[in-house]
């Protein structure tokens, strides 16, 4: 139902450089009134930066923004709001102890004789809540409402200035199915009312459900703008991921014939994982493949006991016969690399020695429980030599190393523990090409030494260099198990 009217918003050749990083180069986005535009892109493609430019949060280094035909330059979020652009943020900005009506009007209260006009607020809030299909009392404190209702209040707040352009940033990531469909209804009615909607999501089915056009971004620039009828889901995935780098496999596929090391069945976590079953065998590298938001990270976290699970059974065969274990127990058998290296992987201000010692404190301690500093340092030196970590010495603070060397230490510290299972969540994120290869080589070495490895990466090309088979995830479920011979095309089709 894309209309052929003039664009209401035209962002042309937007450039944005941060120190050391080029976030946007010649990014474009055109939206017409009465149109829902999907904005897609992998992590780091520049969607958020582009929307922050539009929202007045950051100012671009180059390019023009035209709103209703006039060139605009936003100095602050306030400017952008005043110009008729509304932003529904991914993280809810609700104030729990305050009422629904107050939350809607928090940044601009209607006043009557020096006080907030509660009567007008209530009436206006009722109208807006009606508009978004929420059945909530405006006088209710928000803390007594669920996530779905809060999301709708957030939208009601965005609508109260009758915006011309509304940005939805992953609005469904925390909604149930029913709430999702209610949200789609809201988006459709906004379109009906002639607003332009920019809809950011990681879920492909949603764009086909509510969007009229789709703009795809990759590496900080806009790569396509199509009517939704012109493309298939597989096309969109291909556009998002781009051509995969042609880099050879690090080892030929070696499907393991050994019996399983760990078996998982029925693993569920409300809102994140549904009935996940998988088994990992010694010596194999299993690529866990799926788009962002498919539940990859959630699966790793649930397996490690970092998030609670609602249901499921984990059987560990590491000591001969299988026995049922809890995620926390499984964590004790496994080496873990999380996707957030700075936040969860390293203790930045501490030395390499201290960081290497962390999972090894048990056997580095003397009988009295005092850590043997000399042994810890020796272990750090061994690790550094084995993985050729570039540092001035084991006492250098790990935070001052390059990303690749940090990650080597993160992986290396597990080697002394000799776990039989490795769970690696985006271990190469943010590394340069050679550092990536080093890490991948290390992963292959681990598998060769008989470990089972579950490897998550959002870069397909990288996954294809090491994986012995692929588990495909979508919406918290494992939907496919593909052999190592699967082509890039097969894998992209599987998630689309």
């Amino acid at each position, binding site marked *: 139902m894309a209309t052929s009217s003039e664009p209401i918003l035209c962002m042309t050749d937007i450039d944005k450089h941060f120190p050391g990083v080029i976030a946007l180069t010649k990014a474009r986005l055109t939206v017409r009134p009465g149109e829902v535009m999907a904005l897609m892109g992998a992590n780091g493609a520049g969607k958020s930066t582009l929307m922050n430019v539009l929202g007045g949060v950051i100012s671009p280094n180059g390019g023009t923004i035209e709103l209703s035909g006039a060139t605009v330059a936003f100095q602050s979020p306030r400017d952008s*709001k005043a110009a008729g652009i509304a932003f529904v943020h991914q993280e*809810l900005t*609700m*104030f729990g102890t*305050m009422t629904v009506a107050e939350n809607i009007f*928090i*940044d601009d209260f209607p006043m009557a004789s020096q*006080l907030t006009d509660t009567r007008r607020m209530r009436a206006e809030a009722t109208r807006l809540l009606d508009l978004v299909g929420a059945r909530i009392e405006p006088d209710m404190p928000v803390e007594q*409402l669920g996530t779905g209702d809060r999301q709708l209040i957030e939208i009601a707040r965005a609508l109260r200035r009758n915006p011309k352009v509304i940005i939805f940033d992953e609005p469904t990531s925390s909604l149930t199915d029913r709430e999702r469909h209610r949200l789609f209804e809201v988006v459709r009615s906004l379109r009906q009312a002639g607003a332009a909607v920019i809809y950011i999501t990681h879920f492909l089915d949603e764009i086909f459900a509510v969007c009229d056009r789709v703009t795809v971004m990759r590496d900080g620039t806009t790569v396509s703008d199509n009517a939704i009828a012109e493309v298939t889901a597989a096309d969109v995935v291909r556009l998002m991921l781009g051509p995969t780098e042609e880099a050879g496999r690090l080892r030929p596929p070696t499907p393991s014939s050994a019996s399983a090391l760990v078996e998982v069945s029925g693993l569920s976590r409300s809102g994140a994982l549904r009935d996940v079953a998988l088994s990992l065998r010694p010596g194999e590298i299993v690529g866990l493949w799926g788009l962002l938001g498919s539940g990859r990270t959630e699966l790793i976290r649930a397996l490690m006991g970092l998030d609670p699970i609602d249901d499921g059974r984990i059987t560990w065969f590491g000591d001969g016969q299988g026995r049922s274990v809890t995620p926390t127990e499984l964590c004790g058998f496994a080496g873990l690399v999380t996707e957030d290296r700075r936040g969860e992987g390293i203790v930045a201000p501490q030395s390499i020695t201290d960081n290497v010692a962390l999972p090894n404190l048990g056997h580095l301690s003397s009988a009295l429980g005092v850590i043997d500093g000399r042994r810890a340092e020796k272990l750090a030196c061994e690790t550094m030599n084995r993985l050729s970590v570039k540092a001035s010495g084991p006492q250098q603070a790990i935070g001052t190393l390059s990303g690749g060397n940090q990650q080597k230490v993160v992986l290396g510290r597990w080697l002394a523990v000799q776990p039989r299972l490795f769970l690696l969540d985006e271990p190469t994120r943010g590394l340069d090409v050679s550092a990536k290869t080093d890490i991948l080589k290390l992963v292959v070495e681990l598998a060769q030494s008989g470990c089972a490895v579950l490897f998550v990466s959002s870069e397909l090309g990288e996954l294809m260099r090491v994986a012995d088979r692929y588990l495909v995830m979508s919406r918290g479920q494992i939907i496919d198990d593909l052999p190592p011979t699967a082509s890039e095309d097969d894998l992209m089709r599987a998630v689309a």
Partner: protein
Amino acid sequence: MAVRKHPSFRQFLADRGFFIVLALTFALFSVATDNFLSVGNVFGVIHSMTPLAVMSVGMALVVMTGKIDISVGSVAFLSTSIGVIAMRDYGFGPLAACALTLLVGVVCGAVNGVLVARFGVDPLITTLGSMIAFRGLGLQLTNSVMLQLPEATRASGNIAVGPVYLDILFGALVIVGFHYLHTRRPFGRVLTAIGNDVVAANKVGLPVDRVVFQSFVISGLMAAVAGTMTALQLGAVTAFLGQGAEFNALAVIVVGGISLTGGRGNLLVGIPLGAALFEFIRNGLTHLGADPYSYRLVGGVVIFVAMYADAIRTKLLASRRKLIIDG
């Protein structure tokens, strides 16, 4: 065990607990002593607690943002000292001196506000520093001696209409005014929003820094007002004026059910209730002939119980919320 079987009873205690404690305290002292429950005594207690309530209501705005201002006692001392010196040495009239006193309170609050809102210094550290510095400055200016108020103004703190002291009416007006400021002015609503979630408040584009700054200024101003009221009641500014008052005010706030984590609480009910509980316990103990040093012990126990009730309340809310989201 009985408590665990009836979660609603726990909730009732958490929500209404201090009404009950206040009522029980009142009943206990009324029965146990002869003079406690007399019109004169009750109004006398309210009279003496009013400056503390006025100080607490100003500080409560800062607490509402999730921050803290422990310099209020020193601000009360420094500002009144300067006011009295202005009258004694520089020929200020009572009204001009009063204005000067309030101005000093505003300036003190602004110093705190700039450090916290503009330079991002931790509010506890900031106001701990200014608490020491302001009192030090005041002691230097007064040479630590008691300064008498001029004869003409000395009695004005204790003017009463019938049994009702004038400053009780003033205090009541202030609290009602602050209640409206908090619940019905955008300033008060933004204050509460900041206390709920400062990150979200920034993201929505609320004027977080400005409002935090203003809350410290108002806290300083009300400390000066409270100091003036105390000085007028006593007829003098002593070196001990306002000493420890910051902790009494904090106790009033906590006992009044205003959450120290910010965003939660009702000034209109909480401040008078919190202040009354403290003063009635103190007064009742005096009537019982208790050792004056026991006030501190009892006061400490009351604060602890109030904090515990606050923790229970927070936990109950969280579990209620979880039920809603899961269900």
